[in-house]
């Protein structure tokens, strides 16, 4: 019997059995988004601009060799020169070093506040959407109250209690900022929970981890990125507004808002003192906005090819 089989059949081994498996390496969500982001020239240029600004903010003062707070009474209101790249202000302080320090504060605020907003907002929104019922309505009411308190009231009070320093400015800006994110996340998760493809994945026997990692998270990230992209410029604007109104940082600390407000005082005769800090602010915000647009296109799973 064995002989008969041997003659009619040839053993070919089983090395081709895995031909049906997916041969190409799977591309993760992040890799795919990065690949598409790289094809977007505007987003890449914005990223380079941001990297350059961050580098200048960190190293700028050392680069030009000037101290941002040192006053020189003999060198007031100088035009830009080899020694003072952006000129000096009304107290003889080097404007380039001050703009760098201001940009440093603005970038710091943007990063820290956004981090807090995302972490707190996601957790809060997730809990609201997960539990529902009365937990949801109580937590929603809390958000409603926080959002209808005038934001300036909260900020001024926090600054009064904690004093005018960078950490207290961060706290003041973070107190109510996460509300919008929480609301957006709640909406998205509620919507996703009942989406057909989530049901299909569950029906096909996908474990909860896979549903969350492959379906829920990538789909909330689009909304989250949109949220972050709009809130980063917002934080930078808010800080500059506070600085302008005189509620923000006090000297010797400085920020782009404080510099703009000083620039306004001098703009009649020395408009450059307004234009340099305002230009830096606009450049940072513009780069963040354009990068945000590019990221949104790259991360949206619906646009995936």
């Amino acid at each position, binding site marked *: 019997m064995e002989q008969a089989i041997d003659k009619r059949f040839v053993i070919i081994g089983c090395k081709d059995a895995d031909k049906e498996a997916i041969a190409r390496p799977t591309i993760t969500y992040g890799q795919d988004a990065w690949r598409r982001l790289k094809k977007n020239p505007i987003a890449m240029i914005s990223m380079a601009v941001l990297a350059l600004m961050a580098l200048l903010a960190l190293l700028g003062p050392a680069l030009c060799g000037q101290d941002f707070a040192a006053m020189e009474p003999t060198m007031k209101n100088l035009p830009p020169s080899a020694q003072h790249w952006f000129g000096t202000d009304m107290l003889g302080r080097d404007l380039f070093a001050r703009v760098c320090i201001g940009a440093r504060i603005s970038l710091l605020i943007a990063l820290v506040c956004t981090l807090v907003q995302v972490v707190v907002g996601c957790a809060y929104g997730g809990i609201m959407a997960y539990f529902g019922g009365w937990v949801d309505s109580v937590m929603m009411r809390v958000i409603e109250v926080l959002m209808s308190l*005038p934001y300036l009231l909260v900020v001024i009070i926090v600054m009064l209690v904690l004093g005018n320093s960078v950490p207290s400015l961060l706290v003041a800006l973070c107190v109510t900022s996460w509300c919008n994110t929480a609301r957006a996340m709640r909406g998205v998760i509620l919507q996703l929970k009942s989406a057909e493809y989530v049901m299909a994945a569950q029906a096909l026997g996908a474990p909860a981890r896979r549903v969350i990692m492959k379906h829920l998270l990538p789909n909330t990230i689009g909304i989250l990125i949109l949220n972050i992209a709009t809130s980063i410029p917002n934080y930078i604007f808010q800080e500059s507004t506070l600085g302008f109104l005189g509620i923000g940082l006090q000297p010797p600390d400085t920020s782009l808002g404080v510099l703009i407000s000083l620039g306004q005082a001098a703009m009649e005769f020395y408009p450059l003192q307004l234009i340099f800090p*305002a230009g830096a602010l*606009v450049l940072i915000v513009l780069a963040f906005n354009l990068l945000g647009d590019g990221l949104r296109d790259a991360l949206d799973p619906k646009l995936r090819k």
Partner: protein
Amino acid sequence: MLKYTIRRFAEMVFTLFIIASATFFLLAAVPGDPLADRADKLPENIRQNMYHKYGLDKPVLERYVITMRGMLQGDFGESVRMPGYDIQRLLSETLAPSARLGLQTILLGVGAGLLLGVLAAMCKGTWLDHAIVFFSVLMISVPTLVFGLLLQKYVAGELGLFPIIGWPKGKELWLGGWSYTVLPTLSGCFSYIATYSRLLKTSMLDVINQDYVLAARAKGLSEGQVVRRHILRNSFIPIITVLPMSVAFALTGSFFIEKVYAIPGFGRYFIEAVQTRDLSIVLGQTVLMAAVYVLVVFLVDILYTLVDPRIRVGGKA
């Protein structure tokens, strides 16, 4: 509908109560009191009289009850910093400029923004679309503050086309004195133009690809009817969600535009009042702003049902 309105109204009153309480305790938590720097140099008995006059000698909870009871009767108390003023008098003098500025800004900003949004969506892919997108990103990246300062310096200062600062008074409070209002309105409205044109464009492009638009076209409706009845109506839904925030924000004052153009609006007093812990003024303004906000949100919920017949008030179809 009536039941829904009553329930919403009760919720609104409750929210306002919470906000007033939160404001009171937030201010009470700040160390120091509004009289401290003035009263310290005065003789002991005069100081006690002053504290007694404003009720600051009582414990916090008692002051809270007194304040809330007064608020129910529309009495927010006299300002500590500006003797003779209460919130009603302050508002009657400062609300009109703020409200006019806000109204003009929102009308021009949202109007122009929606128009540009429709144009960009209808001419998608043409140079017009790219130009609108480019300008809205640029506008959204320049803070209102910088716009205000630059317009003031170059249009008013160098070219002398409009007054540098000031605001129409007296008979011209609401209508007239337009030249004063041009620059503040312009500097305020750019951010609205940018926001709304982007929002409407995205939402319209979303709607254009829907099946019901294809169905409407297949039925042989004219292009104008398709755009007006099917595309525009549906793409306004996200707009209506964000509009109340903008309206409430604009109506209750843009603090820095008021500061740049020296407009006698109430934003300035708000900052002063919070910094000096002037409770009656802060409470009055906060409750007013919150009331405007809550009311606008309520009106918008009603408006929803008019724009989108699929949404029914009260949850039942």
